[in-house]
């Protein structure tokens, strides 16, 4: 705990300050926008449909790879802390990890996972 209470206070204070700046401007000079003023900008012609859609990401394979990589990272934090004390065991472990990560990366690369599907 300790210092993280301070961090939480700072977090909230910054967010509140930003929200207040935004809120103040609407309170000082309230404006109601007309329908044409609210049309999203795409160069002058109002859009036919809502922009929100079943958005086709082209990098979904890479996103899945990230999920697994992210988890591997979690193991590396405690490992880094005890690395010096554990010495050669830790080094071997790390080699295994790097190998795993490289194999996963190379496989995905070969499967064209880093290009737009």
């Amino acid at each position, binding site marked *: 705990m300790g210092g993280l209470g301070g961090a939480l206070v700072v977090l909230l204070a910054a967010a509140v300050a930003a929200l207040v700046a935004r809120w103040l401007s609407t309170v000082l000079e309230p404006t109601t926008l007309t329908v044409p003023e609210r049309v999203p900008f795409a160069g002058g012609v109002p859009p036919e449909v809502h922009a929100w859609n079943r958005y086709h990401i082209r990098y979904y394979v890479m996103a899945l790879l990230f999920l697994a990589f992210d*988890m591997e990272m*979690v193991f590396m934090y405690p490992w880094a802390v005890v690395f010096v004390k554990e010495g050669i065991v830790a080094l071997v472990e790390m080699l295994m990890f790097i190998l795993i990560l490289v194999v996963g990366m190379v496989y995905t690369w070969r499967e064209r996972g880093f290009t737009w599907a």
Partner: protein
Amino acid sequence: MIEVILLISAAIFGVGVYGALSQQSFVMIMMGLELMINATVLAIVAFWWGTTGGDPRGQLLVVVVLAVMAIEAAMGFALVTAVYRVRKADITEKLKRLRN
């Protein structure tokens, strides 16, 4: 204190059970599962903190649970993608009906 935390964990777990059972979409079902895992993590840490005298295996269990969650999520999304590619649907009932 540990009772309070376990109550919170039970409540999150209940919400997760509700979500996993009631939702029709694959991905929403996965959200229910993740909530249950969330509750599990909380409960494990509560036990670790209150009853084990700081046995590191408690923490290890949390990390393993997180790994399970990552595996579940990655495979779940991969399957949803593969299924959608063939069936053009992501709803459980639609799939049952589409099965020949």
